């Protein structure tokens, strides 16, 4: 697990650690790079979010200021987008969990006897990574368009209103988010379930617990690290995504998320302070969410 990876290495037996100037030489270039291209941009973003328009400047010209009103203004203007981002991301995360858990359980527990099959199934799980993110989203757009076989059949069966659409609706956006981030959910789930000791499950049933109780009291708690990691890995990119919600992809005018507004404000309207303020809000909410979630699910050692 990535989240665990930073913690686990310390636990392994290692050569006695040395203090040395070599460590500085090894760390310095990379750390300097991250300070320059990750940390200072975040600072720039905070500074930009507080800028005020230049008095005599053109559109897109701003001066450094302490204009915290920007935050009030973007929340007022874009509250629906903010709520949509986190709402869609939450639903997509839950759906991805429901989809992935049985699949990961099958690959990690049931298929243990056939290692080659297990690895080939893992290849299938990550296969969507190998084809362009944008193209696979567009493929769904075509497959689920109004003239497509699936939608026309649903209409013929009266399961959908004759003038109904799928693409352009919130359902389509949530569907796309779920599909695109399923591998991020399945892989961490698989890696905890793969290590699940099935003797605990046998012990549970020997003690007369039924299959459901065994699942609820043993399997779920033991796979909690995978659930937490998968949830974070799905929720974070889903909340910031703007491809699925974009009008040219699965979204419509009423499905725009924070990412769409950030993009529009930054790259089209040149309203940099608004884009920066929204980015800061997005990041702050996600960090709070990560902190609270990890604490409550009792897997603090993940970080």
């Amino acid at each position, binding site marked *: 697990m990535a989240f665990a990876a930073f913690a686990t290495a310390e636990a392994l037996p*290692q050569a006695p650690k040395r203090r040395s100037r070599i460590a500085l030489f090894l*760390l310095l270039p*990379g750390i300097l790079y991250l300070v320059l291209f990750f940390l200072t941009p975040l600072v720039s*973003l905070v500074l930009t979010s507080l800028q005020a328009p230049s008095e005599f400047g053109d559109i897109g010209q701003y001066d450094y200021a302490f204009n915290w009103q920007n935050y009030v203004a973007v929340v007022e203007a874009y509250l629906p987008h903010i709520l949509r981002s986190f709402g869609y991301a939450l639903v997509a995360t839950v759906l991805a969990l429901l989809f992935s858990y049985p699949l990961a359980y099958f690959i990690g527990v049931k298929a243990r006897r056939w290692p080659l099959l297990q690895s080939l199934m893992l290849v299938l799980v990550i296969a*969507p990574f190998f084809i362009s993110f944008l*193209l696979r989203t567009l493929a769904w757009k075509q497959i689920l368009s109004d003239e497509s076989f699936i939608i026309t059949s649903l209409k013929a069966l009266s399961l959908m209103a004759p003038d109904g659409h799928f693409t352009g609706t919130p359902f389509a956006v949530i569907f796309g988010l779920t599909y695109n981030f399923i591998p991020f959910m399945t892989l961490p789930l698989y*890696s905890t379930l793969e290590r699940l000791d099935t003797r605990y499950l046998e012990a549970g049933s020997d003690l007369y617990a039924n299959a459901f109780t065994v699942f609820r009291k043993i399997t779920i708690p033991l796979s909690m690290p995978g659930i937490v990691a998968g949830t974070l890995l799905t929720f974070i990119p889903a909340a910031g995504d703007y491809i699925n919600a974009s009008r040219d992809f699965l979204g419509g005018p009423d499905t725009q998320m924070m990412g769409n507004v950030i993009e529009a404000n930054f790259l089209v309207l040149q309203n*940099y302070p608004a884009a920066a303020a929204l980015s800061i809000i997005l990041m702050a909410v996600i960090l709070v969410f990560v902190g609270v979630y990890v604490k409550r699910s009792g897997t603090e050692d993940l970080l």
Partner: protein
Amino acid sequence: MSGEVQAAAVLGGLAEGEQLEDRRPPRRPRDRRIGLGDWLLPAYAVIAFVFLLIPIAYTFVFSFNDSIKSNIAWRGFTLDKWLNVCNVEGGAVCEAFGNSIVIGLVATVVATALGTMIAIALVRYRFRARSSISLLLFLPMATPEVVLGAGLAAQFLAVGVPKDMTTIILAHTMFCISFVVVTVKARVASLDPALEEAGRDLYGSPAQVFWRITFPLLTPGILAAALLSFALSFDDFIITNFNSGSVSTFPKYIYISASRGIPAEANVIASAVFLFALILVIVAQVSRAARAKRLAKLG
């Protein structure tokens, strides 16, 4: 992100460690009737895989479509698009593809070098500010791409750097470093320090010990990290979109053409990349399985 890291592990069959050996006692035959669960889960898995593969199959099939401009309705089978990939729109698809390859290669080399150095330092040395450094490495993975992209763009704007190929490479290197660290670190941690000690005992200089012992042992992890970096860079759209100016990359080309219709040639390139990656992974998996079998035979 652990998903990506595991993707890399699967990718090469290369990353840290070998498969866990099976410590469980042999299965007792239990007399129970074939339950619901015995076919329900496999059936579900089959349906789930079909679902996951639908858009891939669609993209692949439509790379053979005899389309004129937009590639929406099926107009008949042709190999034409595969044979003349670069003939559309003055080669715009191929130019974007070439840019993506160059950006991916440069960003991968730089990120892999920087990340590997950090990974070695984290496992092997003691130093102050360790937890702050871990946090600094973790945060880029927990930050939404749109924030990373907008942040860098705001910085380039403030400093007055024009956006071009260089800014894309700088951005891609940044988000690849953390993934390299995570992937390589696992490999460094699983390395037996006694091997290097033996090298030193035999009067190897520090440089000799590193290049003759440490580096070859780390190679699988480094390769997996490099593959992962390249894959991340090649498919990145959001960060690229904020920092590319007028330079086109393959994902950006698709984004821009999405409103007027994607030519089938884009499907050709995506399908070719997909097949290449798939073959690479399957070969690596099968050879790993063969190696494990050989090792098992040796006892």
